[in-house]
């Protein structure tokens, strides 16, 4: 150990990078059943090669690859790459670190901290990164920043991406507020939030002479970290993802004493992370269009051998592909070696792997077909992903963002739309329908919570992009903002004072009931509160009734409502008498009941009983009740509940009036 230290002191600082090669999520199911995310083929080359080649071209000399699952596969792949003298292996050492127990990004970093392998500033990568950024100048800049600001923990690297650009995953929309010398003040990921407005804390603008607000950025998921990042993760166990870390650091800037900076990459530098299918699609397209130069498919990513011939319209064809006269590769297509394409087939904007046999009359558009697959005649594949070693019999139609896992055999003429298909029934107990011998349809998980909408949105945003559907995020966000407005309209925003008054009243009554105080005193208390908060008479009546009705929740949690309300009503009867004196007060009372009933199911159920009691005690008169009743919305359950009482009331009235007559 001391020898190692001596070495590192003697030689110049080796630039290190950490790649967390584990993806804690299930966006890529079912492809990730057997292949880890790092070995997912991107344009027929495993993702890991892109990451390692990017690091080596960027100037990194030592990389730590952190894996939690499929370790054997990854190690095997790395060894075979080194044997084939992949480009990165000549200038960079790769160490695989294994940890079976980590469950999140944060856990991995904490583990890394424990292992104490990192010496100086290092580059931190999340899984699935592709890029062509020159890292050394950015690391140098980070170093300088650290010298001036001792607490600088991390430099985020972001790329410019205009609104509407497909590479800018709407899931990860970033709003950033920073000072002119690139210190981050606010970093917010907007994707999942449905709000149309953003709140900026005032302190940001007050404390700084000038701030820049950016909404045109894309997170590359690459960051340069100082060594204290590791200890910060270890100290704060609630940092699970990098976003948590950034948010935590920004919120607790004074406490933790660390700051975050950011850097904008300019020119032809590109960085992106494959975090879901949509990003996978857009990154594939970008690489196909050569935005990632010099990592281009025809020059081989790390193999340093020409793999494809680059033709017009961005068609990349491997040398031994069988094509016939009548088929056409229209535009943006890659076909891997050993594949063959049948007659009258049209392929456009798709990635075809190696040794794929495509039959006649097939239409493949905007799709990804992995290696060793057989596609039967007359098939149509659109906007879908077909895994390795699949067999699609003749006449299959696979469309609308379907994902088919490895080894699936689809029977003839099957129509798959927006499904996830796996080749065997799953072991984890997720429900699946059997379609055929080797095809099981995975049902998406149903979530019980009320943000099922959110989940659906999540899935929609993360699956493949289809140009026909309107952007779901825009529609839904518009709808949700409307509904929010509606909601807020019915519950008219209670001015603060009245709210406070209500709570005071509730407190007084609770105390009164518990301590068995005299009602007169309580009335005095309520009146004095009323003057303190400058509340009108109407409001007083309204709120007092409301308070009483809400008391059972305070006092008798968990017990049935009506029995617990009765003694309260009895006890506070003098108060009721005091406040419900005239017709308008009665109306207020009824409104209070309606109000509370709207929010509380329990009151809803027994509202007739309450009304009955009030009526019997002569707090409410029939006319008022009937008037109010006619004004209630007929469709609510509340109405249904109140109806029997009012019917009885009417009958009684008629009876009494008829009696009187």
């Amino acid at each position, binding site marked *: 150990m001391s020898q190692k230290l001596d070495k590192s002191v003697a030689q110049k600082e080796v630039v290190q990078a950490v790649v967390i090669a584990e993806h804690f999520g299930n966006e890529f199911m079912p492809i990730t059943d057997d292949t880890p995310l790092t070995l997912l083929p991107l344009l027929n080359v495993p993702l890991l090669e892109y990451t390692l080649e990017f690091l*080596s*071209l960027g100037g990194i000399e030592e990389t730590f690859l952190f894996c939690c699952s499929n370790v054997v596969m990854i190690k095997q792949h790395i060894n075979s790459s080194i*044997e*084939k*003298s992949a*480009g990165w292996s*000549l*200038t960079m050492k790769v160490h695989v670190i294994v940890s079976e127990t980590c469950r999140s990004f944060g856990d991995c970093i904490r583990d890394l901290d424990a292992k104490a392998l990192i010496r100086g500033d290092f580059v931190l990568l999340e899984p699935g990164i592709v890029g*062509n950024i020159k890292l050394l100048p950015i690391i140098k800049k980070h170093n300088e920043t650290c010298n001036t600001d001792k607490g600088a923990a991390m430099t985020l690297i972001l*790329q*410019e*991406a*205009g*609104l*509407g*650009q*497909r*590479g800018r995953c709407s899931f990860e929309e970033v709003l950033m507020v920073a000072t002119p010398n690139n210190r981050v003040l606010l970093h917010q990921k907007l994707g999942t939030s449905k709000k149309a407005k953003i709140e900026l804390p005032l302190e940001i603008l007050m404390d700084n002479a000038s701030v820049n607000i950016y909404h*045109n950025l894309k997170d590359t998921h690459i960051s340069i970290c100082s060594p204290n990042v590791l200890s910060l993760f270890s100290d704060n166990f609630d940092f699970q993802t990098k976003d948590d870390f950034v948010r935590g650091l920004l919120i607790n800037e004074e406490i933790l004493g660390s700051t975050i900076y950011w850097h904008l990459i300019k*020119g*032809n*530098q*590109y960085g992106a992370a494959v975090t879901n299918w949509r990003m996978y699609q857009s990154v594939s*397209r970008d690489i196909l*269009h*050569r*935005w*990632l*130069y*010099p990592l281009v498919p025809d*020059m*081989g990513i790390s193999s*340093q*051998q*020409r793999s494809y*011939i*680059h*033709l*017009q*319209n*961005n068609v990349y064809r491997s040398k031994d592909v069988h094509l016939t006269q009548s088929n056409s590769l229209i535009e943006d297509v890659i076909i891997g070696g050993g594949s063959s394409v049948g007659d009258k087939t049209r392929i456009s904007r798709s990635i075809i792997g190696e040794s794929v046999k495509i039959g006649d009359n097939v239409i493949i558009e905007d799709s990804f077909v992995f290696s060793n697959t057989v596609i039967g005649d007359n098939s149509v594949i659109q906007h879908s992903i077909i895994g390795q070693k699949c067999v699609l019999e003749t006449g299959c139609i696979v469309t609308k963002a379907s994902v088919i896992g490895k080894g699936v055999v689809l029977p003839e003429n099957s129509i798959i739309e927006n499904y996830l298909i796996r080749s065997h029934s799953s072991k984890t107990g997720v429900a699946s329908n059997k379609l055929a011998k080797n095809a099981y349809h995975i049902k998406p998980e149903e979530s019980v919570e009320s943000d099922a909408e959110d989940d659906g949105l999540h899935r929609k945003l993360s699956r493949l992009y289809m140009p026909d559907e309107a952007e779901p995020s825009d529609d839904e966000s518009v709808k949700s903002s409307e509904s929010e407005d509606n909601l807020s309209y019915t519950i008219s925003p209670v001015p603060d004072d009245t709210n406070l008054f209500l709570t005071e009243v509730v407190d007084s009554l609770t105390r009164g009931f518990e301590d068995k105080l005299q009602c007169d005193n309580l009335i005095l208390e309520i009146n004095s509160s009323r003057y303190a908060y400058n509340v009108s008479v109407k409001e007083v009546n309204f709120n007092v009734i409301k308070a009483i009705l809400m008391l059972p929740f305070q006092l008798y949690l968990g017990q049935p409502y009506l029995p617990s309300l009765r003694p309260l009503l009895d006890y506070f009867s003098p108060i009721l008498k005091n406040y419900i004196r005239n017709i308008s007060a009665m109306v207020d009372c009824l409104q209070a009941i309606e109000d509370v009933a709207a929010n509380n199911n329990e009151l809803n159920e027994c509202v007739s009983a309450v009304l009955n009691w009030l009526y019997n005690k002569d707090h409410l008169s029939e006319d008022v009740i009937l008037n109010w009743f006619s004004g209630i919305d007929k469709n609510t359950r509340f109405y249904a509940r109140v109806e029997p009482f009012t019917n009885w009331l009417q009958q009684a009235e008629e009876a009494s009036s008829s009696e009187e007559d």
Partner: protein
Amino acid sequence: MLEMELYSDVIKLISDIRHSKLHNSYDIAIHTEKLIEKLISEGKWNSAEDLMTLIKLRITRFANALPQEATSVNIMRHILKIIRDEYDSGFKNKGEGQQSAHHLGSTTMDDCEDYSKVLPSLKSSLLDNLAEYKVELESSADNIAAQALEHIHANEIILTVGKSSTVEKFLKYAAKSRKFQVVVVEAAPRFLGHLMASNLAKNNIETTVIPDSAVFAMMSRVNKVIIGTHTVLANGGLRAESGVHMVALAAKHYSIPIMVLAHMYKLSPMHLCSSEQDAFNICASPADVLPYSSGPLLDKVHVYNPVFDYVPPELVTLFISHQGGNAPSYVYRLLSELYHPDDQEL
């Protein structure tokens, strides 16, 4: 591992070029030469045939990885020719004394084709030859520059495109004794013309920088066009920086001579069959042409950024190498002097 053992040096060279540690063709040339020198002095080979096989393997590997970088491959080819020549001359000399009875009957053609005989002095003579070649490489730029005064007269306006260190030296040498002006075409999107212009201006040469679009407008007043190139093809055409073809066409329209300064190692036995020829041209990142700030436009358009251009031989007036000037129609002859016909197919 097998591959690494076989030709780790070439793989290292390829990696250096990809990592941009070697920029211009001069550096690549020197490194290649050193590589082969090392191979000859330290490599495991017995006969000329072994050595040639080793070098041919390297050529194939290199051409597979970086097909546009012709410099390295050309130098290795030339060295193959040197080996063949050395072998032939070695045997001719020795043949006087040591010819066995077996060989007396056979013709000299057989001797030339069969390189498997062991020639003990081959290594040393090769190393001597290579040392000479190295000197030639190093002085090539200066030799070309020394010819400047034959081509530039006083008060000329010379047009050049982008940056070429050969052309820079050439012009600087001429500027010491003649007064002339230079118009530099900026060569977007890499803008190397800007660097060239600032270098020339530092040497007190009157320089004007124009954007690519103004070439035709300026051309009528230009007296000469002097450019460098990336590769010279077998028919006398050029693979030059993108934009040179349109400069050449404009010069042809006004009957202005174009002089191409090319080192010998840029001469390649490659022919161009079609403009879509495999690996003739390479497209670099479109971000140089349409930046990321263009927003949603980027998804909807195809952007191309080709690096090279083909210039047909009829547009070139003169090639200047360290040996002197040549017409494009003479290039085939130069090629036969540089490379053996058998090596030209690699």
